[in-house]
């Protein structure tokens, strides 16, 4: 009897077991994991800003152009040409026809308006996430001057960039660099300052002597640079607003170069040649007190503070070849972090703190690269006849560096590249330019 019952129930139990997964599959949501996406510029629509007062229409197109150039210049955005627009924006407060913008695949829509009163300029904008059909963040209004419209445009672009990418802003920043004119064997060099995009170039020094390696202070109001006007390299501290300057005190026979500010701007680290030996020193700007941080017979130079100020990365040839080392901000035994082939130099710590940018020379070519602070995950971003001297954008997302072309007529220019290695482009300057140092975001 039991055997018969088992014989009859077995198929029923088997069927139930087979149906069990299907029944469980119907319960709960469909779960999917996506691990691969695409990397492409995000298309955005930017209608010309709306003039709200008479006379402001003269500046609306320029404002929109600067905003669009900022965004498209990152390589992360792509402007949709206005000729593709289906609907026109006629009022700042008018409801957005999302369907029209979706139809042209605009993922972000920027609507702005401009009004002027004398020299005062008021710019306001709204950012819309087209496919979500909602405003991304709140509308923003800024007040400035007509002559400073580019800065206001940079501010607008910064907001858009930050809201969409989640990155910190960097468009409204300046770069100090060495402007070069004349033939290669008789270059005239001046310290100059410009907007991050190459606009508004101003010269801070004359061409009377060789100047090198300007470095912005964290607040952007001062610049350190090296000058040979005394016949030997000396470090000068320059006030950007007044062009007033002072020399960093050094003893007779000492040569100082390669300076850089600490993150709080109160200290300077630099290389000092004393008695034929090059070591790294630190000077307190308030007290003038010097501290020697290295004491090796080799050449130690190009120091750079970590963002928290606790460590210093620098280059040294103590192993026989230029390599990158990290030590405590107070000195101590350094540890080598560059382990690849070739020579490494000019290390710069990222403002984010996660990467170190460097110049690498290997197999007859120069590279700009980045690595983790422990030396791992080295990635070379560029390759050319001569690339050197990287500097980070304030948000740690973009690098600028000098690139020189080969030959007696070779020119030196400033280039920028995304930390991913994409979007390599030249920064247009009025003349040859080298040694860029990216300043902080302006207030």
């Amino acid at each position, binding site marked *: 009897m039991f055997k018969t019952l088992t014989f009859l129930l077995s198929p029923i139990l088997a069927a139930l077991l087979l149906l069990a997964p299907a029944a469980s599959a*119907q319960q709960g949501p469909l779960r*999917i*994991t996506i691990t*691969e996406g695409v*990397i492409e510029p995000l298309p955005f629509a930017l209608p010309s800003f709306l003039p709200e007062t008479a006379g402001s229409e003269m500046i609306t197109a320029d404002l929109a152009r600067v905003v669009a150039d900022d965004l498209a210049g990152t390589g992360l955005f792509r402007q949709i040409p206005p000729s593709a627009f289906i609907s026109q924006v006629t009022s700042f407060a008018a409801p957005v026809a999302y369907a029209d913008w979706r139809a042209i695949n605009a993922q972000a829509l920027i609507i702005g308006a401009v009004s002027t009163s004398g020299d005062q300029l008021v710019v306001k904008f709204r950012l819309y996430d087209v496919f979500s059909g909602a405003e991304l963040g709140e509308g923003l209004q800024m007040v400035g001057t007509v002559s400073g419209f580019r800065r206001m445009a940079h501010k607008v672009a910064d907001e858009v960039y930050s809201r969409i990418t*989640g990155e910190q802003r960097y468009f409204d920043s300046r770069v100090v660099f060495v402007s070069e004119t004349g033939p290669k064997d008789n270059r005239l060099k001046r310290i100059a300052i410009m907007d991050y995009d190459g606009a508004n170039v101003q010269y801070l020094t004359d061409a009377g002597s060789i100047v090198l390696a300007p470095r912005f202070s964290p607040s952007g109001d001062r610049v350190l640079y090296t000058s040979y006007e005394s016949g030997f390299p000396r470090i000068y501290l320059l006030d950007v607003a007044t062009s007033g300057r002072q020399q960093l005190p050094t003893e007779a026979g000492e040569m100082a170069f390669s300076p850089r500010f600490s993150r709080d701007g109160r200290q300077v680290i630099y290389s000092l040649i004393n008695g034929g030996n090059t070591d790294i020193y630190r000077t307190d700007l308030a007290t003038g007190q010097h501290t020697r941080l290295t004491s090796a017979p080799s050449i130690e130079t190009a120091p750079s503070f970590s963002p928290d100020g606790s460590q210093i990365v620098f280059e040294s040839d103590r192993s026989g070849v230029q390599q990158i080392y990290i030590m405590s901000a107070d000195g101590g035994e350094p540890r080598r972090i560059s382990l690849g082939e070739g020579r490494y130099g000019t290390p710069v710590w990222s403002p984010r703190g996660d990467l170190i940018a460097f110049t690498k020379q290997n197999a007859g070519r120069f590279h700009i690269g980045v690595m983790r602070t422990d030396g791992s995950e080295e990635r070379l971003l560029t390759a050319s006849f001569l690339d050197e001297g990287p500097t980070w954008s304030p948000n740690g997302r973009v690098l600028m560096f000098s690139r020189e072309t080969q030959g007696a007529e070779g020119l030196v220019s400033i280039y920028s590249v995304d930390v*991913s290695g994409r979007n390599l482009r030249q920064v247009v300057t009025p003349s040859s330019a080298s040694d860029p140092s990216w300043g902080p975001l302006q207030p």
Partner: protein
Amino acid sequence: MRTPGSIISGVSHLLLILWLIIGWELSHDPLDFQVTSVTVVSGDEFAQIVAASTPDVTTDTPPALAEPVIDEAAPPITAEADVAPDVAPPAEVTPPADETPPPPLPETSPVAEVAPAPDQPLSLPEAAAAPDLPPSPRPQPRPSDRVAPTPVAPPPPDANISDVVTEAAEPDQPAEAEVVEQPSEAASPEAAATEIVTEAETPSGAPLTSSRPQSRPSRPAAAATPPAEAVAATEPDDATAAAVAAAVAAAASTPAPSGQSGPPMTGAETESFRIAVSQCWNVDVGSLSTGVTITVAFSLGTDGRVVGDVRLTDGSGGDQAAINTAFGAARRAILRCQSFGGRTGYVLPIDKYDQWRDVEMTFDPSGMRLR
């Protein structure tokens, strides 16, 4: 040796022989047959008959051929006109309903301009003339502004960037006055590479090894194989479209009332859904949000479109700002791709609606992080 079998066989053969001999004599009905009367004719008579049934072509004098009149002022006949192929109109063009023959192709047919002149020697294919360089040990990375899981070859220079590949179409000559056709431009997907190629990784173009003596021509079968890049230009989207079309066909062929749970979602159906969303998931690999993994939830209507909002259910690997950024990118991907490439909703089997009504999707970009 007498056996029953031999006896039966002998008797049977005997009866058969007797039936053959006597049986026919017993039948009185004659067999049916037809009689056809024939007439015997000679060869001369046959020739006369044939001559009477065919026209006599030898009796009429052929007219003299007219001398060709050469118009000195007329433009010379171009080689293109002679060799212009008979170009078929585009498939979209509907032939006229009446039987009026279509007008001849104009002499300025754009296709004829590219046809080789008959007096020009045919040039060998470029591949045949090129030196037989040894293949590089590994494929060279190709830099592109767009990076996607599936590579896309650079589109033609005059092609528009579109999600759907279309061929350029020229309006045919109007067979009738009311036929009006707008010209359409070629469209092709934007070129895409499968990985970021920095300047440092860009191939210099210099050969890795010296060229070797040219080997024998490759077999025709190998030459017929399309280049890998050309295949890549069509396959990715074709594959996706095929998967989507298959899903559409499957959904259309097995209609079921809403609410009825069908068989479990197949791997192909889930995969096509995953691919559809990933096509729109734009990852900023240089951003801190690259380390963020998020999970979102949303509901779909029976038309495959998102109903309500996309909700963030989980996030890890970064601060709240990075999570919000990653969520924004994921939400844009889900909302944008439901109408990507002309779709009107995600293509999912309607008979399994209960299984995909609610979706929980995890976006994990860790595999795309810069290393």
